[in-house]
C-alpha cells in the first residue's frame, strides 16, 4: 500500500466512532437523495398514468375542414363573383377506412400500440334518470394496450365485452349517477334517436373524475351497429409511441402521409408537461439541498480531524512529507468516507423506498404510495455524493497542507 494511503487508513481506523458519524452523514444525504428522487419519479409516473388513462399520445380523427371551400373557379378579370352563405356539406364523417390507416400507422417504428374507437355522445337512461355522456366503442384487446384499461377495472372484466354484444362497461361515477350496478340494464339513446338496452358487465375508475363520471365503453362492433356504420368505420384512432415526450415529432411525420387530422397530446395539454417539469425541478432542488447539508457534515468532521491533528501534520512535514502528501492523506480519508457512506446510503435509500411503498394510500388504481426504483437515481446519488465529499474533504485538506510546522512544533 502507498505510504500516504496507509497513513490515511490508520487515521480512519483509529477513530471508529468519528468514522461512523462521518459515514452516517453521507449515508443520510445519499439515501434521502435516492428516496426523494424515487418518490418524485413514482409520483410523476402516476400523474402520467392518470393523464394517459383517457388520452393517448397521438389521436387521429376527421376534423371538420377549416378552409373556405371554393365552389366556383376564380372568375376572369372583368367579372364580379358573389357567393353568399357558403357552408360545408359533409360527405364523410369520421374515418371510413380505419383499417388502412391502422396499417400505415403500425409501420412507424416508434409506435407501440394503436387502437380504433367510435366516440359519440349519448344519453344513458335508467328509469327516469337520464345522464348524457360519452360512449366509446372499443377494440378491447388494443384498447387495453393503449390505455391499460384493465388496470382500472374495479368490478367485472373488460374482456367480457368481446363475449356479449349487449355488454357495457361504465365509469364508477356514471354508474352511481344512474343507479346501476353489475348485471343491471342501462338504456342508451343515440343522437339519431335510436334506443338500445345494454347489460353492465363492469365498472372502471381511472382516478380522473371527469372521465369516471361520463364515460362508458361497449365493443366497437356493437358501436358500429348502434350507429349504423360500415365495418371499417372509426371516429378516432389512438396511438401510443415509445417516448411520449417525442409524440409531437412522430405526429408531424404521420400527418404527412395520413389524410386526417393527426394531433399529439402536447397540442392543448402543455400544462401537463410543465407541471411534470416543475415537479422534477423541485425534486432536484430538494436533493441538492440535502446533499449540501450532508456535505457540511463531512466538512465539519474533516475540519475537526485536521484541527486535532495539527501537531501530527507538523511532524509529517518535519519528516519530509510535502503539501501534496498531506492533501492526499486527508482527501483519501474523505474519499473513503464518501464511498462507504455512498454504498451504505444506496442500501438504506432502497430500504426507505421499500418501506414507503408499503404505506397504504388509495389513489386511482394505486393502493400504496407510488415510488420508482431507477438506476439513474442511484448513479446520480453516488456521483453527486462523491463530488460533495471531495469538495468537503478538499478544503480542510488544503488547510492542513498549509500548516506551518515551525509554528506548531515550537508551541
Amino acid at each position: 500500500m502507498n505510504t500516504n494511503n496507509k497513513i490515511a487508513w490508520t487515521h480512519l481506523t483509529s477513530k471508529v466512532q468519528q468514522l461512523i458519524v462521518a459515514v452516517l452523514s453521507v449515508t443520510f444525504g445519499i439515501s434521502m437523495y435516492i428516496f426523494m428522487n424515487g418518490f418524485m419519479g413514482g409520483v410523476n409516473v402516476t400523474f402520467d398514468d392518470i393523464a394517459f388513462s383517457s388520452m393517448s399520445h397521438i389521436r387521429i380523427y376527421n376534423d371538420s375542414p377549416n378552409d373556405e371551400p371554393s365552389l366556383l373557379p376564380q372568375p376572369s378579370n372583368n367579372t364580379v363573383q358573389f357567393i353568399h352563405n357558403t357552408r360545408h356539406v359533409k360527405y364523410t364523417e369520421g374515418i371510413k377506412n380505419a383499417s388502412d390507416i391502422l396499417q400505415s400507422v403500425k409501420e412507424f417504428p416508434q409506435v407501440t400500440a394503436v387502437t380504433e374507437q367510435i366516440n359519440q355522445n349519448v344519453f344513458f337512461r335508467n328509469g327516469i334518470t337520464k345522464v348524457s355522456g360519452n360512449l366509446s366503442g372499443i377494440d378491447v384487446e388494443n384498447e387495453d394496450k393503449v390505455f391499460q384499461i384493465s388496470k382500472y377495472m374495479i368490478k367485472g372484466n373488460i374482456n367480457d365485452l368481446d363475449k356479449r354484444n349487449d355488454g357495457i362497461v361504465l365509469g364508477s361515477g356514471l354508474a352511481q349517477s344512474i343507479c346501476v350496478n353489475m348485471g343491471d340494464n342501462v338504456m342508451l339513446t343515440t343522437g339519431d334517436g335510436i334506443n338500445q338496452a345494454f347489460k353492465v358487465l363492469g365498472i372502471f375508475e381511472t382516478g380522473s373524475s371527469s372521465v369516471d363520471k361520463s364515460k362508458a365503453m361497449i365493443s366497437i362492433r356493437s358501436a358500429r351497429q348502434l350507429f349504423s356504420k360500415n365495418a371499417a368505420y372509426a371516429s378516432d384512432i389512438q396511438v401510443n409511441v415509445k417516448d411520449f415526450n417525442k409524440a409531437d415529432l412522430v405526429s408531424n411525420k404521420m400527418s404527412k402521409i395520413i389524410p386526417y387530422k393527426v394531433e399529439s397530446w402536447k397540442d392543448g395539454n402543455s400544462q401537463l408537461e410543465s407541471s411534470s417539469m416543475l415537479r422534477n425541478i423541485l425534486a432536484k432542488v430538494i436533493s441538492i439541498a440535502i446533499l449540501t447539508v450532508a456535505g457540511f457534515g463531512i466538512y465539519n468532521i474533516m475540519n475537526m480531524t485536521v484541527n486535532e491533528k495539527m501537531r501530527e501534520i507538523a511532524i509529517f512535514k518535519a519528516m519530509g512529507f510535502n503539501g501534496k502528501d498531506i492533501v492526499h492523506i486527508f482527501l483519501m480519508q474523505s474519499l473513503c468516507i464518501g464511498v462507504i457512506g455512498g454504498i451504505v446510503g444506496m442500501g438504506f435509500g432502497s430500504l426507505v423506498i421499500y418501506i414507503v411503498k408499503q404505506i397504504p394510500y388509495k389513489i386511482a388504481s394505486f393502493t400504496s404510495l407510488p415510488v420508482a426504483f431507477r438506476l439513474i437515481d442511484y448513479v446520480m446519488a453516488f456521483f453527486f455524493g462523491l463530488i460533495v465529499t471531495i469538495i468537503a474533504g478538499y478544503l480542510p485538506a488544503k488547510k492542513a497542507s498549509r500548516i506551518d510546522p515551525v509554528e506548531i512544533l515550537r508551541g
Partner: protein
Amino acid sequence: MEKILSVNNVVKYFHQPEDFQVLKGVDFEVEKGEFISIIGKSGSGKSTLLYILSTMDTDYSGNININGTNVTGVKQNKLAAFRNEHIGFVFQFHFLLPEFSVIDNVMLPALKLGRKPKNVIRERAYELLKMLDVVGQEEKKASLLSGGQQQRVAIARALINDPTVIMGDEPTGNLDSKNTKNVFSIFRELSREQGQTIITVTHDTDFANNCDRVIELKDGQIISQ
C-alpha cells in the same frame, strides 16, 4: 575534514507581535561527524536558528548550505524532500504519531523516501530499535511507551534514512537525569563511532560541556564557538 554545513550571515526578523530582530548575522560551519550544542538564554534565538537550519523556516536572509546543496530560496516541496533524505529531527517532546505502532513510526520517513523495499526498511527499523534498546515493543501503539522509550524511538526515526545531520531541539529537555544520560550517550556514540553529525539546542550545561563544540548565542549573535 569534510564541511557538511555552512551558515552565512543569517538574519531573521519576527514581525509578531512587533518587529524584532532575532538573529543578527550568524556565521558558522560544521564538519562531518561533529557533535555540536547550541546554547544560550531564552530568547537568544537558538531554537529559531535550529528551525532555520532544519529548512522548515524559510523566512530569513543570508545563506545556508547543507552537504553541498544550497537550501536558501528553494521551494517548500523540494525542501520537504530534502529534509526527508538529509535531516533527522528529534524534538523536546518526542512527537511520535500516537495512532501508529512503534515500528511504523520508525519506518515512515523511509517509506516516504521510497528508496528501499519495505522488508529491508522494516529490518533496518528493528535493528535501530535494538541498538537503542527498545526491544519487544515494536508492535505497540507509540503512545503506550514511557517518555524515555518514546524519545529513543524518536531517535530511531531520525536515523532511519541515514541523514546527513541530526538536529535536536532540546532532546533531553523533558527527560529525567537517567534518561538524559542515556540519550546523551546514544548521541555521543553515534557521533564517535558512526561519524554522525549532530546539532542540538540545549539548556543543559552538563550535556553541552560533553559535546565536541559549543556554540553560544546571545541576543541573536554568536558570542563563542
